[in-house]
């Protein structure tokens, strides 16, 4: 396929396979990022997200399958692909010893900008990411949020058409995370295609138009956030008794009345269950009333992505927080 700016898919990957020694990081991943949209690649630590991004950014060669960016093959036409992409890594990759300004000037010069243009572009991006005050300081003195913003600025120097954001908010406090989100939304408004990896369901829900859920090197689901939520039964019934001692009783009652799996959160005092048939709801309500269980909450709501993830993979998104994280780190 040749270069065509009207190509509907900015990034296409089919059957990507990658092994590191005996571990298989990716075992046949397909994904598509549509032009001008945000694709969220969602999965727990060690799922293979970073490996996938590294292949799509020409940093790693796949052992199987193929991938293209705007029609250019990531292996055969790597040089062209590099002219189209911007990369913000999970391990923010700015030069710690250089100031914010010099980091950006360096990248501008590497991309072939004349000195004055590189300087102007650096100033423009530093202003946009609210780093002007810290522009002259070495990057090693920056806070986590500032470094992430500088990294984001660095990936934008060359006006990329496709931007890879590999866990852009991992390790940030909620405030800095919100700041980064605002900035990412600004980029989307500019028409850049974004491929975003995240282990935060909330982040994918907020930013992504389409979502690919990856678990253990495989795609387990694709769709829009709403489609995925619909797959988990669509609706969730959430019940909380006024007397927490009766939580188990409520759980048993809901389990008897529905076919789906009941989740009890003893700490929050809440029982949730996916509901496919909403006609059941009045029936359940009556039964609770018959037993004289006083209710603090009885809500029917859309499933959260968290619940979707649980339904799709059989484990919660943060289960493997400390388990497989070495896997993706080992290829560095």
């Amino acid at each position, binding site marked *: 396929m040749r270069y065509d700016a009207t190509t509907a898919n900015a990034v296409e990957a089919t059957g990507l396979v990658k092994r590191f020694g005996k571990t298989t990081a990716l075992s046949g991943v397909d994904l598509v990022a549509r032009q001008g949209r945000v694709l969220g690649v969602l999965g727990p630590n060690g799922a293979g997200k970073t490996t996938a991004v590294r292949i799509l950014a*020409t*940093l790693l060669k796949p052992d199987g399958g193929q991938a293209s960016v705007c029609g250019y093959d990531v292996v055969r036409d790597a*040089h062209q692909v590099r002219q189209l992409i911007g*990369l913000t890594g999970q*391990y923010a990759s700015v030069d*710690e010893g*250089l*100031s914010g300004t010099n980091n950006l000037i360096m990248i501008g010069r*590497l991309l072939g900008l004349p000195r004055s243009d590189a300087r102007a572009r650096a100033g423009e991006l530093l202003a946009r990411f609210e780093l002007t005050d810290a522009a002259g300081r070495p990057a090693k003195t920056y806070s986590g949020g500032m470094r992430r913003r500088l990294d984001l600025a660095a990936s934008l120097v060359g006006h990329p058409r496709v931007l890879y954001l590999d866990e852009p908010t991992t390790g940030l406090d909620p405030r800095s995370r919100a700041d980064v989100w605002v900035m990412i939304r600004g980029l989307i408004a500019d028409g850049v295609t974004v491929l975003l990896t995240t282990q935060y369901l909330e982040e994918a829900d907020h930013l992504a138009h389409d979502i690919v859920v990856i678990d253990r090197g495989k795609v387990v689901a694709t769709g829009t956030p709403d489609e995925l939520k619909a797959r988990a039964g669509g609706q969730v019934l959430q019940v909380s008794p006024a007397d927490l001692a009766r939580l188990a009783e409520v759980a048993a009652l809901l389990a008897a009345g529905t076919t789906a799996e009941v989740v009890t959160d003893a700490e929050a005092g809440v029982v949730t269950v996916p509901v496919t048939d909403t006609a059941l709801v009045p029936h359940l309500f009556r039964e609770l009333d018959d037993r004289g269980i006083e209710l603090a909450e009885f809500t029917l709501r859309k499933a959260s992505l968290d619940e979707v993830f649980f339904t799709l993979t059989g484990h919660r998104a943060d289960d493997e927080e400390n388990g497989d994280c070495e896997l993706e780190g080992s290829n560095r």
Partner: protein
Amino acid sequence: MTATAIPEPARRLSLLGGMRNAFTLTWRSVLKIRTNMEDVLGLSLQPIMFLVLFTYVFGGAIAHGSTHAYLQYELPGLLVMSVVFATLGTGLMLNQDITGGVFDRFRSLPIARWAPLAGAVLGDMVRYVISVAVTIGFGMILGFRVLTNPVSAIAGCLLLLAFALAMCWVSALLGLLVKTPQGVQVFGSLAIFPLVFGSSLLVPTATMPGWLQAFVKVNPITDLSAAERGLFTGGPVATPAVRSLLWALGIFVVFAPLAVRAYRRRT
């Protein structure tokens, strides 16, 4: 955003473009030296420490009480020693760039694959110049005198830089092979100490046992020290200088491609 406004990406990078990349990254290395005071301090203090220690600890014993005579003998050797130790910096910086993720960014950019390596190596020339300048400058304060002529002395400096430019590819290879910056320090020192001390760099070799003399004879540091001595304080130059240059060429031809290959593998 209109479809027609986007130029078709270039198919390949010209050699000139690659050289421009390398110079930009050289600028970065130099900038880093300037902003890293610890590095500059280490680079300047190490030759001073060598000079003071070797001149006054060994000088009297080796040169029968005349520290000045020993200074004249050892300084060309200490130039070699300081520069060889300074080449460790190349490996350190490459290793930090890889573990810190800076190379990932470089590799995602449409630049020449070899440019980051060349930039690190060329940028380090500045470090070697600092090291040589401090050694000669402080040596002169202690009483060292060039006994040949300025042209010979400059030729001596250039020969040192040429040799360092070759040696730093060994350091680069090391930086690419080991996992941590600490590893570069440890393995680098393990390799450098026998090379530096197992030579005529600090003392005449006559009292060394036969097996060691055999090593000393093939050690390139011996040739380089002899050439430097000839160029700064007089004596035969041609043979050791040519041998040093051949060694530099040989080291470069073997280790530069190995480093480039390790770089491609590692990243």
